[in-house]
């Protein structure tokens, strides 16, 4: 069975998210008297709007433009071939100047878009770019973008319901309003822990699929290595890194690891080369 580990993890995380959602739905039905059909339609609309706005915003925020086929024929050929081998339609290809080597995928199977930065194409060799493209296509093929939108949708709905539950059970004084906002945020964080956990695993799966599609993990490993080594030269001093690793807060250790969408880059490189 394909992606057995991912399916097992998705079953566990999906059940947890469903449990959160079910509790929120029951609260909405009980407190507001909404029928189940209205709760479901409202939820689908909420997530759908998030998905549409998110895709539009992502492309607009980087100023992405269509990747011209006459200037980048090799990339178009690579994506066409990779899409065929992954069993998906060729996504729309776009390019943007992001200031750093980067690439991301938005959308879903059949309506996907892959954006690459000019800096990525400049810094990486052809095979490495192919590895990156294969990884992004794997995200589309595995519906990772949609899963993340769904996860955030559930987290947001549960957070909103938690806020209202606090408000409606209180005396409507200023402490209740404050508590409602705080509880909403903390609830969202709690749900997102599970969403991020599965997101990190999905990165490994996308790496593995990319390696399978291009016949080995070395090109993608090299791409990650190039980008991260350039990064290390520019970023923190060794002392900063040590301090960050020891901190519960901070942006690199403890809480940040819990809420990381990507696994450590070193581990990904190791796995790709294993």
């Amino acid at each position, binding site marked *: 069975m394909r992606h057995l580990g991912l399916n097992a993890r998705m079953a566990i995380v999906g059940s947890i998210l469903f449990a959160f959602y079910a509790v929120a739905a029951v609260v909405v039905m009980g407190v507001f008297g909404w029928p189940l059909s209205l709760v479901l339609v409202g939820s689908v609309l909420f997530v759908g709007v*998030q998905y549409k*706005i*998110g895709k539009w*915003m*992502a492309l607009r*925020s*980087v100023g992405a433009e269509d990747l011209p086929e006459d200037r980048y024929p090799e990339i178009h050929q690579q994506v066409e071939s990779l899409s065929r081998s992954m069993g998906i339609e060729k996504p729309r290809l776009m390019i943007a100047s*992001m*200031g*750093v*080597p*980067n*690439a*991301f*995928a*938005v959308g879903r199977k059949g309506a996907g878009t892959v954006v690459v930065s000019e800096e*990525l194409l400049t810094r990486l060799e052809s095979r490495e770019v192919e590895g*990156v493209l294969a990884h992004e296509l794997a995200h589309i093929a595995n519906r990772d*973008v949609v899963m*993340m*939108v*769904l*996860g*955030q*949708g559930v987290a947001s709905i549960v957070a909103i319901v938690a806020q209202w539950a606090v408000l409606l059970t*209180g005396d409507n004084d200023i*402490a*209740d309003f*404050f*508590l409602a906002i*705080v*509880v909403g*945020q*903390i609830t*969202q*964080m709690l749900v*997102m822990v599970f*969403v*991020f956990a599965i*997101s990190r695993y999905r990165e490994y799966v996308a790496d593995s699929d990319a390696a399978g599609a291009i016949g080995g993990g070395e090109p993608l490993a090299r*791409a*990650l290595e190039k*980008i*991260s080594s350039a*990064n290390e030269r*520019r*970023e923190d001093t060794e002392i900063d890194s040590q301090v960050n690793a020891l*901190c519960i*807060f*901070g*942006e*690199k250790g403890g*809480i*940040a690891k819990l*809420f*990381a*969408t*990507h696994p450590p*880059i070193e581990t*990904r490189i190791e796995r790709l080369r294993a």
Partner: protein
Amino acid sequence: MVDVRTLAAAVLGVALGIVCLAAPGTIVRIQTAGRVPQDRYGRYGEDGPSGGDGGDSGIPTRWIRLVQAVGVVLLVGGAYFGWTLL
């Protein structure tokens, strides 16, 4: 008798305020996950907010400052509700 909801507002407000001040990038990530692609900011293969100041992470500095400002409000609010319990 201590009002439990006011106590919760004080404790949770201060706790969330500290997180907002100390790890603003993490808060931005939680709020933006699934709304914008997680590879959108920062470098390829990394989480967007790699730095707290937003400078090298690609996350707009104003987002980081906004979260930190919210953190200050939460800290002050939490402290106020704690003070009312004394």
